[in-house]
């Protein structure tokens, strides 16, 4: 289905470009996410989130005096930097997008930033690239993210585990930049806090057999197994194999593992396991959920709220600079995201655009309580989840 959506998006953009000149004012925003690849089960909701914000703005007619916002999708594949760059290249040079909402995975995000966005001077706001390395990447002020850095997630994970009295964990991570980066960050934080990581071992995605990895993990032991992987990929394989062989029965799931698939694949077998993914209990989150349900997609999906916020920030910044040129509005992103100003929640984008037009400050809170710090990344809010009765639910916000 997801590929069907992509295909129609692609056709839409073909016809879209043909008629582009006919339309009075059109703002194109690239949505580059891993519609295929390890994150393919959570990206549809992310794309829908971003497009929800765009539809809202288009309907309001308030952006740059009635501009229409068009979403153009590109596939980042999440892992293949070459393919991602070429998709971004196409969106920027051929479809002439004004900004990019994306990408999702840290590796491809870095690649697109360096090879496509910076050369062309295009603003990029990622909803989910969490690698700490991106904090210090050269970006000419073009790159932002509404997701927190994994350095932050490592601390949150440590807190959650310690609150539950877990002192010893085994750790496995998907063997790519996301998994390795998160594992490093977590291990450092956990050990600093006095915990023990009995073993940190990688698993390759897409390899169906994980008995060797699980054997090593089981041998090292631990009160829980931290699975820094993807729910659509090896992460699930590890969990499956661990449950089957009785190696572990308690798991910790970081952001890449939290998804509907987890309920489908395991259900009650995971009762007692826990985890966390970005999210807030702000009133924005609830509003977003309402909007998402009305629009017919799953608003609780990981990074869907962040995607809405990323798209919203792009459009608000455009209005603040009164320009759809990245060079002009890149400096406005931080202004609209942070205080001072009137707080803006999902569904209030029209109001925000009007305020900005009238020269007033806004402080965009959005669906994920956006607060951009330092080099333009989210300060980081997480929701802690726990499995009970065969599905996970949020029990606490951090």
């Amino acid at each position: 289905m997801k590929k069907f959506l992509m295909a129609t998006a692609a056709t839409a953009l073909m016809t879209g470009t043909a008629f582009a000149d006919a339309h009075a004012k059109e703002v194109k925003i690239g949505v580059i996410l891993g519609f295929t690849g390890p994150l393919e089960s959570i990206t549809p909701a992310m794309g829908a989130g971003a497009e929800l914000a765009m539809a809202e703005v288009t309907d309001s007619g308030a952006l740059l005096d009635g501009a229409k916002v068009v979403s153009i999708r590109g596939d980042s594949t999440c892992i293949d930097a070459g393919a991602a760059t070429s998709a971004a290249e196409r969106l920027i040079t051929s479809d002439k997008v004004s900004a990019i909402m994306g990408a999702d995975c840290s590796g491809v995000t870095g690649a697109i930033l360096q090879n496509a966005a910076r050369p062309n001077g295009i603003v990029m706001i990622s909803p989910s690239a969490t690698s700490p390395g991106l904090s210090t990447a050269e970006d000419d002020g073009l790159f932002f993210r509404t997701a927190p850095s994994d350095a932050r997630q490592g601390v949150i994970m440590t807190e959650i585990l310690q609150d539950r009295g877990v002192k010893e964990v085994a750790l496995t991570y998907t063997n790519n930049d996301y998994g390795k980066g998160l594992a490093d960050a977590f291990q450092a934080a956990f050990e600093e806090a006095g915990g023990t990581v009995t073993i940190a071992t990688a698993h390759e995605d897409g390899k169906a057999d994980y008995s060797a990895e699980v054997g090593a993990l089981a041998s090292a032991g631990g009160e829980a197994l931290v699975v820094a992987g993807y729910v659509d990929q090896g992460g699930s394989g590890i969990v499956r194999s661990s449950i089957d062989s009785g190696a572990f029965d308690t798991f910790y799931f970081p952001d890449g593992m939290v998804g509907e698939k987890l309920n489908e694949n395991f259900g009650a077998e995971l009762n007692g396991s826990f985890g966390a993914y970005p999210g807030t209990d702000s009133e924005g989150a609830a509003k977003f959920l309402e909007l998402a349900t009305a629009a017919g997609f799953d608003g609780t999906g990981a990074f869907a709220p962040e995607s809405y916020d990323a798209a919203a920030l792009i459009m608000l910044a455009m209005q603040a600079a009164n320009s759809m040129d990245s060079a002009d509005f890149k400096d406005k992103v931080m202004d609209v995201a942070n205080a001072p100003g009137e707080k803006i929640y999902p569904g209030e984008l029209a109001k925000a655009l009007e305020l900005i037009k009238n020269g007033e400050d806004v402080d965009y809170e959005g669906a994920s309580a956006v607060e951009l710090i330092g080099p333009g990344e989210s300060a980081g809010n997480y929701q802690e989840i726990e499995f009970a009765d065969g599905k996970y639910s949020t029990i606490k916000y951090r």
Partner: protein
Amino acid sequence: MDLLNAFVALSNFVLIPAIAYGSQLALGALGVTLIYGILRFSNFAHGDTMAFGTMVTILFTWLFQSWGISLGPVPTALLALPFGILGCMALLLFTDRVVYKFYREQKAKPVILVIVSLGVMFIMNGLVRFIIGPDDQRFADGERFIVSVRTFKDMTGLEEGLAIKTTQGITVITAVIVVAALFWFLNRTRTGKSMRAYSDNEDLALLSGINPERVVMITWMIVAALATVAGVLYGLDKSFKPFTYFQLLLPIFASAIVGGLGSPLGAIAGGFTIAFSEVMVTYAWKKVAGYALPESLAPDGLAQLLSTDYKFAVSFVILLIVLLFRPTGLFAGKSV
């Protein structure tokens, strides 16, 4: 008691998975080795042949499931397996007719056939993705465990648990049956004997009145059966994903070569060698050693020879070592 715990832990995490994996590899390697023996080339399309056979089986499984047919505790896929084999045979015979036959008649060099099989690999790769898509497909149903960890612990009172999955049991049983049938066929039937004769000496076999096209046809049919069985067992035990099957080609080749290309016995030995070494070299022996050794000798570290990161390199390192010392494999295979 501790020794028993050590043995159970070892069985649960090393022996049982390795035996199941080894059986799957051995079945795959048998297919590769038969093609090499009779048709005299390394078939790069074998992984994708497995994927194709499995895919047909999965489609039939879904069909049966939608009709409400099931085998109770045993996976429905076993019922669909014969149809998968037939589908795979049809594809291979078709491929042979439109692709390989031409080169056979031309007496093309073996390496040309290898390159041709690369082309076939690309096409099958695309075909399978085209039909079923590139995603994971789970099609196992029925009872999940023969023995689950909890029952085992309750039964024995041991600290360590032991799980035997239904799919693992089926894998081993099926593999034994298939291998026995294959060896019976090769050694006891007229056709099988003529195949072996053809494999040993093509010219001599032709003189003694063997119809080569018939031998080739039967080879493809057997290969289709082996590939489909191997693929379905692998898919049941783990999951089906076209890309994984393509990747499976590498350990399968390693198995066939370690055993010696063209030698069916070698393929089986190779399959288990690769499977066991992959699991054992990267296994952290801490737990087993902790039970088996007196406390003073128990290791502090993980007692792991190589990190699991290098799991996939292990089979090739073994392959290289074997080739260095026995250039035609353990069971002295052929080389053309």
